[in-house]
C-alpha cells in the first residue's frame, strides 16, 4: 500500500500550482470564489492561457496538440484547479467532441475540427437531451432525413449548456426508425448559424442562464458533417459516457467548499459563540469531512485502477453518486451557516454595505439550489444505481 503520489507526480503538482499562481487572472479568481457567473470572454481568456501552456487539451495525445496526461496528472490538475479557484475548462469541445472525432472522425474532420477547438475559433455545445427524453437517450425524436448531399433536421434539443455562446453544436439525431430505438441514431455536427436553428434561454431555479433549448426547423446540414457511420450514434454516445469519468466525484470542488465552510463557520456567530463551536453544526461538518476524506481515497483507489487498466470501471458510478451527495451536503451546510443572511437574491445592486454577508459568501443559497443539478445530469443518480445494480451486483 502506498497512498502518496510518486516524486514525478509531486513535481507535476508543483508545476501546476506555480502555473495557477502566475497565470490565473485575479478578476476571474474573484468571480469563481464568489460563485458568480463567468462571461464568455472570461472563459475564452482562460482557455487561451491554458492553450498557450499546452494544457488545454490535457487528455488529448500530443500529435493533436494535447498534453497526454495520465489519469493521475489529470486528477492532480483538477484538485489544484479547484483550490486555486480556476474556472473549469468548458468540456464540450475538449473532453467530449475531441475524443469522439479522434475515435470516430475521418481525417478531414480531425484536421479541420481539432485545431479550431484548441484555438478557440469554435465553441461547441451539446445536443443530446430532448424534452421527454432526459436520461432515456434512446427515445430521442429529433429527425435527420437524408436529402441528396444534405440531412434535413427537425426537432428540439434541451439542457444545452452554454449554448448561448456556441457557434457549433454536435447532436444525436434519429436517422432511422427501424429496429431497436438505439439502432437508428446518428451523431452529426451543425453550424449554429444555419437557417432554422434557434436558441432560447432556460432560466434556472436560482435565476441564472446556463442552459438553453435549441430548436431545429428544416435545418439543412451537409452530409459530410456526419461523424462515423449513419446509425452509429448510440455507439458514440456510449463511448462518450464511459469516457473521462475519473474526476466525476468532484472531490476538488468539495475540498474547496469544505475549506470555505470552515472559514465561514469560524466567522459566523450563534448565541454568542462561533458557529463552529455549536456542537450540532460541528458534528454535521465533521461527518461530511469524514465522508470526504474517505471519498478522496475511494477516488484514488479507482484512479489507480484506471491507471492500471486503461479505463475507469463501473466504480465511476459510485464516485458520481457519493461525490454528488457529499457536495450537495456541503452546499447545504454553507447555506445554513448564513442563517437569515442566505436569503437575499444575489444581485449587483446589493452593495457591500447593505448586504448582510461579505461577497465571497453571498451565493451559497444560489449554489445550493443550482447544484441540485449535479445529481440529475450526466445520468441521474437513480440511473447510476440502476446501472450498478445490474452490471456490478448482478441484480
Amino acid at each position: 500500500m502506498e497512498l502518496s503520489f510518486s516524486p514525478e507526480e509531486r513535481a507535476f503538482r508543483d508545476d501546476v500550482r506555480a502555473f495557477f499562481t502566475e497565470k490565473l487572472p485575479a478578476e476571474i479568481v474573484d468571480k469563481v470564489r464568489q460563485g458568480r457567473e463567468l462571461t464568455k470572454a472570461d472563459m475564452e481568456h482562460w482557455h487561451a492561457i491554458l492553450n498557450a501552456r499546452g494544457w488545454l487539451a490535457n487528455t488529448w495525445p500530443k500529435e493533436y496538440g494535447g498534453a497526454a496526461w495520465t489519469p493521475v496528472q489529470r486528477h492532480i490538475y483538477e484538485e489544484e484547479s479547484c483550490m486555486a479557484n480556476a474556472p473549469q475548462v468548458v468540456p464540450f469541445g475538449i473532453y467530449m467532441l475531441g475524443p469522439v472525432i479522434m475515435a470516430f472522425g475521418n481525417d478531414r474532420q480531425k484536421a479541420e475540427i481539432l485545431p479550431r477547438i484548441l484555438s478557440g475559433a469554435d465553441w461547441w455545445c451539446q445536443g443530446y437531451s430532448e424534452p421527454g427524453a432526459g436520461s432515456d437517450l434512446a427515445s430521442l425524436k429529433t429527425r435527420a432525413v437524408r436529402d441528396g448531399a444534405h440531412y434535413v433536421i427537425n426537432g428540439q434539443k434541451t439542457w444545452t449548456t452554454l449554448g448561448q455562446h456556441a457557434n457549433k453544436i454536435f447532436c444525436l439525431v434519429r436517422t432511422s426508425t427501424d429496429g431497436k430505438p438505439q439502432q437508428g441514431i446518428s451523431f452529426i455536427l451543425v453550424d449554429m448559424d444555419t437557417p432554422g436553428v434557434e436558441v432560447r434561454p432556460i432560466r434556472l431555479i436560482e435565476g441564472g442562464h446556463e442552459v438553453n433549448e435549441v430548436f431545429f426547423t428544416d435545418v439543412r446540414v451537409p452530409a459530410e458533417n456526419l461523424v462515423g457511420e449513419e446509425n452509429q450514434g448510440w455507439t458514440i454516445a456510449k463511448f462518450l459516457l464511459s469516457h473521462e469519468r475519473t474526476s466525476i466525484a468532484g472531490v476538488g470542488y468539495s475540498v474547496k467548499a469544505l475549506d470555505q465552510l470552515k472559514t465561514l463557520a469560524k466567522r459566523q456567530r450563534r448565541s454568542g459563540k462561533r458557529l463552529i463551536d455549536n456542537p450540532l453544526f460541528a458534528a454535521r461538518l465533521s461527518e461530511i469531512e469524514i465522508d470526504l476524506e474517505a471519498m478522496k481515497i475511494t477516488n484514488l483507489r479507482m484512479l489507480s485502477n484506471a491507471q492500471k487498466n486503461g479505463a475507469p470501471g463501473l466504480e465511476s458510478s459510485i464516485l458520481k453518486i457519493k461525490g454528488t451527495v457529499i457536495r450537495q451536503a456541503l452546499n447545504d451546510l454553507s447555506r445554513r451557516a448564513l442563517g437569515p443572511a442566505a436569503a437575499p437574491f444575489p444581485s449587483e445592486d446589493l452593495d457591500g454595505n447593505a448586504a448582510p454577508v461579505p461577497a465571497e459568501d453571498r451565493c451559497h443559497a444560489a449554489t445550493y439550489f443550482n447544484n441540485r443539478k449535479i445529481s440529475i445530469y450526466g445520468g441521474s443518480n437513480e440511473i447510476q444505481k440502476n446501472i450498478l445494480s445490474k452490471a456490478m451486483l448482478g441484480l
Partner: protein
Amino acid sequence: MNFEMSEDRRMIADSLNRFLGDTYGIEHRTKVAYDAPFHDPEKWTQLADLGVLYALAGEGQGGYGGTGFDIMAVFEPLGRALCPEPVLPALMAARVLAAGDETANGAGTGTGTGAGIGPLLSGAVRYGVAIGEIEAPYGLEDIAAQAEAVDGGYRVSGRKSVVYGGHVADLFLVAARLGDTLAVFEVAARDCAVSGYGLIDGGGATEVFLDDAPARLVVADGAAALQDALDAGALALCAEALGVMDRAFALLLEYLKTRKQFGQTIGSFQALQHRTVDLATEIEQARSITILAASRMGTPDQSRTVSMAKNLIGRTARLIAEESIQMQGGIAMTWEYPSSHLAKRLVMIDHQLGDTDFHLERVMAAHQAA
C-alpha cells in the same frame, strides 16, 4: 377529539384559497415576487379588504381570531399560493402591539400603541418587525441594539438584518436593550436608513440601520412579548410550509403519473414509489406537529411545542424540496416550472425565525434542565 376545522376558520381558509387561486396564479406570483417591491400592492389591499388580517388578532384587539388554529387557517392558503405578501410581519406586529396594550392597561410598563392596532388590521399601515441582527439571527439573548431615554422620548441605535417585509413597512417594531431589559420600540421607516432587496425565494426584506432614531416605547419589558411574536410567527411559517408542501407533492405526484421514461410512467418505478410514500408519510407527520403546536398556543407549552414543530417542518420541508426536484429531474430545476419556486420557499423557510438546529436546541435544553 375532533380534527376538523371550525366553520369560521374554514370560511377564512376557503375565501383565501378562492381569492388567491383566482387572482394569484403562479405566473402572476413569479412576476411580482422577484421584482421590486417584491409583492403586489393592489393584491395586498384586496387581501386586507377580505378581512384576513382581522383573523390574526383576538377580539380584545378588534380582531376576530388570533388563536393557533386561526393562524393555520390563514397561512396554509398563503403557502399553497406561494404568496409573497407581507402578512407574517402583520401577525407578529399584532402580537407585540397587543402585549403593549395589555401592559399599558395593566402594570403600566408599556405605553400603549400609537396609531393603534386598527390600521394594522385594516391593512392601512404596514409594520416591519425588526428583531434579528447579523450576530443574533434567531434568538433574543444576543440582541445588541441599544436604546436610551432622551428628552422625554427614546432614541434607538443598531442594525437589524433581513427584516422580512421591511422594504414596504411604514413603521418598525424594534427590539433593543434599554438598560437591563429588552424593550420594544416603534420607529417610523422614514427615521431609519433602510436598504431593501429581493429574496431568492421571492418576496422582499431589508436591512434597517438605526442611528439615534427617535422612537416610541411600546413594551418596556418586552422579552415575553417578543417571544410570543416569534412563536406565533414560527407557527405561521409551519402552516405556510404545509401549504407549500401539499402543492409541491401534488405536482410531483402528477408528474410521476404522466411522465414516461423507458416506456413506463416514472411512477411505476418502485424505488421512486417507496420514496414518494416516505414523503407522504412525512407530510402527515408535519401536519400533525403543526396541529399540536397550534393547539398549545397560549399554554405554558407554547414555545417548546412551536420549536418542535419548526424543527420537524424544517427537516420535512427540505426533504420534500430536494426529493421533488430529484424525482422530477431537470424540469424542476427551471424557473418556468412551479416546483422550483415551491422548493426554494420550502428550503428558505428554515432561514426564518430559527432553523432546525436552533429549535432543536430549545427542545434539548428542556431535557437538560430537568
